[in-house]
């Protein structure tokens, strides 16, 4: 009799717990989405259109709340640190960060984001040593391969080449320059000069100050857009311009003949995959995020409206 009573009470208790669980489920359906902050320099700039579109679509699929931080240029790790600190006070669950140039960025990210997951987007942190890999996962294009693609595009007739790269303490710039130089070396091309941009510099003045070249390779998207705009100026009129560009403006300038060749990373894919990877991390605490290299595309003027792939590529920018 006593055994029966205990069995009965245990069953009632179990059923009560189960009922309470479902009541909790009903009231717990509006679980707040995980908040992921996106830290990009000049977040409103149109070069990030495809990237943010990809991020938003992936965030929608994975029920993530994206917060695109309103930022200006990010010249150094300190500026980026301020933005991250500001967001930390905003109950952020994870960060998608474009790392500022400079070797201190990695340390800063380790300190500031020790207890929240971080994925680097577009490019990796600069650590000065090409052999040493970063501790963070990175989702972005292979800059070395983009540099190499440009070198192959220039071909063997490129005699005098000038390179305008981004900041010297940037993993993307150094990798692209290395990829370009290594490939060109095999093709017996000659690099007349290589200029790494500095803070508050005028790129056109720097170009003017250097030896004349007949091919200009611009490995920084923002600079490419600026140089492209000035392509009709006297000092650039006879120079063929090639470069790496993320924005629709770069593609339009290729279309208008202001630049001659363009390697474009797939911003949409970077955005989509970075949020997807972060969603996996947020869903499974012990998941280890993985780095991924995204698609890159060599775009030529003649192929622009002939190639269906490029047509679809353009669709991501709208």
């Amino acid at each position, binding site marked *: *009799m006593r055994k029966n009573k205990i069995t009965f009470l245990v*069953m009632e208790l179990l059923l009560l717990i189960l*009922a309470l669980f479902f009541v909790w489920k009903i009231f717990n359906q509006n679980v707040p989405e995980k908040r992921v902050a996106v830290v990009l320099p000049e977040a409103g700039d149109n070069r990030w259109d495809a990237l943010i579109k990809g991020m938003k679509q992936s965030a929608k699929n994975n029920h993530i709340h994206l917060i695109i931080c309103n930022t200006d240029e990010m010249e150094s790790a300190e500026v980026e640190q301020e933005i991250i600190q500001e967001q930390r006070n905003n109950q952020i669950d994870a960060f998608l960060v474009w790392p500022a140039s400079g070797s201190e960025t990695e340390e800063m990210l380790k300190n500031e984001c020790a207890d929240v997951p971080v994925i680097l987007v577009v490019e990796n942190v600069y650590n000065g040593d090409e052999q040493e890999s970063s501790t963070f996962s990175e989702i972005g294009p292979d800059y070395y391969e983009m540099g190499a693609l440009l070198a192959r595009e220039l071909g063997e007739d490129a005699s005098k080449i000038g390179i305008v790269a981004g900041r010297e303490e940037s993993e993307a710039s150094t990798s692209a320059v290395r990829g370009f130089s290594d490939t060109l070396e095999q093709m017996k091309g000659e690099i007349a000069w290589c200029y790494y941009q500095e803070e508050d510099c005028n790129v056109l003045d720097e170009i003017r100050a250097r030896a004349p070249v007949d091919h200009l390779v611009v490995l920084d998207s923002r600079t490419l857009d600026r140089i492209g705009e000035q392509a009709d100026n006297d000092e650039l009129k006879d120079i063929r311009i090639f470069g790496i560009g993320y924005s*629709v403006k770069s593609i339009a300038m290729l279309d208008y003949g202001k630049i001659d060749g363009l390697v474009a990373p797939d911003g949409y894919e970077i955005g989509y995959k970075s949020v997807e990877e972060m969603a996996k991390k947020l869903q499974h605490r012990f998941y280890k995020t993985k780095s991924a290299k995204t698609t890159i595309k060599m775009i030529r003027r003649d192929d622009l409206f002939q190639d269906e792939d490029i047509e679809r590529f353009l669709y991501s920018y709208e």
Partner: protein
Amino acid sequence: MKIKEDKKRFHKEEFSIQSIIMSVLTAVTLVTIVIMGFLLYHRFRQTMDKTAVSDTEATVESTVERINLAFLDIRHIFNAANYNVIQEFDISSQEFSKQFSLLYEINSDKIQSIALYGKDGKLIASEPVAMEKNNADVTSQSWYCNAESDIENIQFSLPHTQNLFRDGSFRFYRVISLSRSVDINDGERPGSGVLLVDMKCSVIEDVLRQINDSSDGIYYYVCNRDGEMIYHPRQSEMSRGLFAEDSSPASGYEDGVYKMSSGGTTEQVIVGSIAYTGWKLIGVIPQNRQTTSSDDLKYYIFITIIVLLMMLLGGNRIISKKISKPIWALDESVKAYEAGGKPDIYIGGSTEIRHLGHSVQKSYEQIEELMDEIIRQQNERRKSELAVLQNQINPHFLYNTLESITWMVEAQKNDEAVLMITELAKLLRVSLSKGKTIIPIADELQHSRSYMNIQRARYKDSFKTEFQIDDGIKDYCIVKLVIQPILENAIYYGVGHMDEDDDGKIIVRGEKKGEDIYISIEDNGMGMPEDVLKNLLTDTNKVSKHGSGVGVINVHSRIRLMFGEKYGLSVESEPDEGTRVVIHIPAIPYTRENAEQLEKQPCRQWRKEDEKK
């Protein structure tokens, strides 16, 4: 083998009636509630699916209507440009430019550009005025070729990136081109050209985006008759292989609702046709669509099932207890009875159980009566058996002793005859004991001494007798005539045939150890072989050939009948060494009450009652 054992064990396991009733009721309840819950959920799901289908149908219908209206608007603009501007005015006139510009201005929210090209693909006029791209060869573009090949109708292109003009803001525009070959008035010379109206893709895409954003798991896409995707909410993912949608089956369907298999699941598709273009608007309801309301319903059904189950479990318990409690109480009282108690048999509960209780009570009362009767009969039987055993002594012994006295008188041994008669008188006094069975040990010893004196006279003192008796045991009870048969055995089988020189001796010892009394009769005669010794106390058919005719087994049986199984005789014997017989009896002081009690019924019955008290 193991399984068989497990099965046996399972079958042997006992379940209480309450457990069985409770289990059966719970199982029935559970199955019923689960089935009802499932049916309820299924019914609701069906209703929801039907609602989703009808809602999607309505959305498809209204969206098709809106897109058709948008296309109709553009057609009107196109026709206005053709009939009211191009065919009305000379293309080189100011009025033409003015009307052309006015038309664009009025409809700039819908159209990206409006342009008129000559036969050779040369731009005649365009709004907004923009610089033509130098690499844009319009004659190779599909909208131009379509207009040239079918001059009668307005041609709709698929959405594409406009490739005509340079844009100061470095942007590209997605448009749907409407083109048609038109007649042109160029001064006095009539000619023909191609009119192009580029409709903003956003006009349609905004509508589709809107319905996709507000849908709950349902999505809508547009494809042409060949299954080529025109709009999909996840088009960018599709172009990168991150998402797949097979539009070819649905693109072949006429307007209506269809079920389609896709990726192992069945989905419902609602197809609507868009006018002028032959495009299809397709609404997809995935089978695994999870909506908030269906989740809510699922949880509510679970909660209802659980609460019902809890209540029914409580109810089941009360019912099962109500049924099983009287049975259990009856069972407990029967068990208590079986354990030796004399409880009142439970009578209560329903009529059937009360009837059962009465029956059991009556049965037990009858059993009690029968048991008492059996015990009474057994006691009677024992008493008569004891009497029979005792009565076996007198005739044999008397016959032998009287024969010895006769022989002594004949042989003129008068003194010895007198002694014999005197000892015989003492012996008979004890033997008779006024018909009692229980006598004091002192009387039994007197009887033994008298017997031994008679026998020694008969055997001419060929052996000696010694009594080593503790005085303390003399006032305890003993069954009469138990030592004498042992002594008789000791004489006939031990020392009786020994010569005087052999020092034949019989020693009788008596002592009290704890609650028991031990009287041993030991001789140094020839002893017994092992097989004789083995059967001495068990062979009931053995009949003594000598002495009184009463065997050792007779004594053993009498003691056990009187005092219980644990008492009686034990015999030790070694051939050529001698025999020792020990009488083991309980130490019961000889009083009138004890003697009468023992006489009335055997000691074991008497002791049992004492223990119960």
